[in-house]
């Protein structure tokens, strides 16, 4: 995206100035930085571009846009990362996560759905407190809910869609892919139940009340969109997790079975006993497609 060559120079200049002012962080009382990006007093510099009203000076008028910019973006991050927001509370989330993140990754897409796309990565790189693992995982599952909600759906696998529906042996050789709305997780705590319990109350509630229990247990989870388009998650066994994960990049059932044989014994044993049931379940839940999803 570049400038429109026919844009009037004065318009370009005034828009660049406007943008430079409204994108600077507001302080904890939501006030605009009193010094402009070029080091002038905002009270003076704003007069060059903005007229006063009968009640507000130019700097007060543009401050409204500065506040709106931040309040809107913060509120989108609160909606997109509800667990993370509850873990920190609004104030700490804004100060420790949202402001620094949005300065590093200001919005560059017309859709606000994209605003949090870099947040899990930003946390991995920039958050260094002792609870980093929980914070990073929380950001990842919050973002996964967003992805699952919006992911394109490819035609789900059904027997009728096979080249020769009468001969099911053909299915063994077809390359199958996981729908892009499927997200897989392996944790050593029950983070999804923890999240569900957290989301029963607004962030303010958790400032005064004890956090829900975070059960210590190995957990393998599929987050998915049901055929009714509801977002659901379910715990699966370790072997089912590994097997279904194998289809992410595309694989035939034959290839998957061959891969299983090369795995450690207990994984292979459990999978070989259950693969038929699992496959049936995945087809019913429309998790598989014959079409290669576009990334």
């Amino acid at each position, binding site marked *: *995206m570049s400038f429109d060559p026919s844009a009037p120079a004065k318009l370009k200049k005034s828009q660049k100035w406007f943008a430079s002012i409204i994108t600077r962080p507001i302080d904890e009382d939501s006030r605009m930085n009193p010094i402009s990006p070029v080091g002038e007093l905002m009270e003076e510099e704003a007069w060059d571009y903005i007229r006063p009203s009968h009640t507000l000076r130019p700097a007060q008028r543009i401050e409204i846009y500065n506040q709106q910019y931040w309040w809107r973006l913060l509120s989108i991050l609160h909606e997109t990362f509800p667990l993370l927001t509850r873990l920190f509370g609004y104030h700490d989330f804004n100060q420790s996560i949202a402001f620094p993140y949005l300065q590093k990754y200001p919005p560059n897409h017309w859709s606000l759905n994209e605003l949090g796309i870099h947040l899990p990565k930003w946390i991995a790189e920039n958050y260094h407190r002792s609870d980093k693992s929980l914070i990073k995982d929380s950001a990842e599952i919050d973002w996964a809910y967003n992805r699952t909600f919006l992911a394109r759906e490819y035609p789900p696998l059904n027997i009728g869609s096979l080249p020769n529906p009468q001969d099911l042996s053909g299915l063994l050789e077809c390359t199958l892919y996981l729908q892009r709305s499927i997200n897989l997780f392996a944790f050593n705590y029950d983070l999804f139940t923890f999240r569900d319990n957290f989301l029963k109350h607004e962030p303010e509630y958790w400032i005064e009340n004890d956090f829900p229990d975070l059960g210590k247990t190995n957990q393998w989870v599929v987050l998915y969109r049901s055929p009714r388009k509801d977002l659901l998650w379910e715990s699966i066994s370790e072997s089912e997790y590994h097997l279904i994960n194998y289809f992410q990049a595309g694989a035939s059932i034959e290839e998957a079975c061959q891969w299983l044989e090369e795995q450690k014994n207990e994984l292979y044993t459990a999978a070989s006993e259950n693969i038929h049931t699992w496959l049936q379940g995945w087809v019913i839940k429309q998790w598989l497609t014959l079409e290669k999803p576009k990334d």
Partner: protein
Amino acid sequence: MKEKHLPNLGIGLGLRIPHYEDIFRDKPDIDWFEIISENFMIDGGKPLEVLARIMDRYPVVLHGVSMSIGSSAALDWEYLKKLKALARFTKTPWISDHLCWGQLPGAHYHDLLPLPYTKEVIKYVAERARIVQDFLEVPFALENLSSYVAYQADEMSEWEFYSAVVEKADINMMLDVNNIYVSSRNHGFDPKEYYQNIPMERVLQIHIAGHTDHGDYVLDTHNNYVRDEVWKIYADVYAKTNGVSTLLEWDDDFVSFQQTWDEALKAKKFQQALHAKLKKPLKKQAVLQGCER
């Protein structure tokens, strides 16, 4: 202006998530819904499923917030292609967005930022609006903003600027009467002067909404009932248009679906007054034909 036979859809609501459950359960007798285009310019997922269910029963009109027609950045053709695809999918009778800017190369501000009211900006924006309308192949309308700043560079009033842009581009007006009121308070003009000096024949739709009065300024918040001052403007404007589609926007601090719809229906009182005067019944048959539904 080319004759376009745009339908009067009646009274509608902005489609918002907190109301989905009531709408799907009760199937209320609402004339039409307006959707925020960008929320549905996606590859799939729950929003498109909801949209398909809404379209089974109601006419849908697209209203965007991110076209940034007045930006000094080049037009975003990927955005416009997605918008056009959504327009085809929904069979929207028109598309509207705002007379504003909100992006620069590499950055989106997700706000409706005001433009300087100058002759060279009129020329620039009108040309872009004409290109957009030609590309979309659907009647295109621009909406007036609520604004909180006025530029030193301004050479004319907002209504002169707005009128000139739509006339020069040969497009339509999506007139937000709450925005007229909000801006009149923030800039100190008489709302009547605004709506008495715009080409009313270009108005294809009216927005009504609530706002928040902060004393020193008024903010367009869409989080409240429509104020009496705004209804008064609506009554005047509706009469001057001879009856166009009307839509209530309610985007925050939601009340129940029924309360929201009841608020929108208050518009009927003003519409009936006009139709009684014109001895013309309030009908929707033509509307439905116009929408090809």
